[in-house]
């Protein structure tokens, strides 16, 4: 097994774990935890392809990951702010209770 295949398999597993958290958790903040794991799995693919792929003088892989981390920080900040706002209204972060719009 080459290092590239090892890293890609590992990031597939990490992505799957994040997806499992998103699907099974009910606490909105812990769903964000799953999303962070999935984002990290995607970043790891970029780094693995940059490191073990064809030569890349423009550093496309690391640059993409750098911007992806910046966007992820923004996403986490806004996401948690929204969750806090929802918590202030409903006194709960349980997504099953947020059904006041249901038809």
């Amino acid at each position, binding site marked *: 097994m080459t290092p590239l295949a090892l890293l890609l398999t590992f990031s597939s597993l990490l992505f799957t774990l994040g997806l499992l958290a998103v699907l099974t958790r009910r606490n909105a*903040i812990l769903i964000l935890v799953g999303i962070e794991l999935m984002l990290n799995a995607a970043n790891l693919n970029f780094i693995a392809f940059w490191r073990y792929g064809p030569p890349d003088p423009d550093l496309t892989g690391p640059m993409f990951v750098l911007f992806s981390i910046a966007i992820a920080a923004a996403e986490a900040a806004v996401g948690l702010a929204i969750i806090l706002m929802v918590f202030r209204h409903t006194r709960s972060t349980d997504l099953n209770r947020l059904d006041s719009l249901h038809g």
Partner: protein
Amino acid sequence: MTPLLILTPLILLAALGAVWNARPVHAALLLALALALIAVLYLIIGADFIGLVQFMVYVGAIAVLIVFSLLITRPGDEAEELARRPRSLVTGLACVLPVLAILVYAVSRVVKFPDAPVENPSVSIAQVGQVLFTSYAPAVLTVGVLLTAVMIGAALFARDPGKNPQFPSDS
């Protein structure tokens, strides 16, 4: 190769704890551990700068933010969560395992790069800065604007509406 074989199972264990621990704060701390180990992984495979950024942003900012949000909000009922577990695990795995199968199949057929060296040379931070502020300068400026907007937006969302009479309190 050997450090990777040692480190990747550790990261998966920490991530599994983050996904499956019934106590929200423990789950968030295990997430911080997994993110820190991923930063070490970046350092090992030669992406030094990305490893440092990962450590500062993910472990230093995002994980801490998640822990504090959990402390501010009220966690759900732990007993109820544990009772719901078996059923949600079955449905969750039924959705997730096909995705894993597709991903692993794709990785097993991944394109071979005949012209690739065993590994590309690692980059210095000077090189990263050089590229970042020449070819990627527009993107850096855009991210700066985005982060400013996010900072204002998050502060607006998280403020206590009762404190400021200028804004109508949204009931």
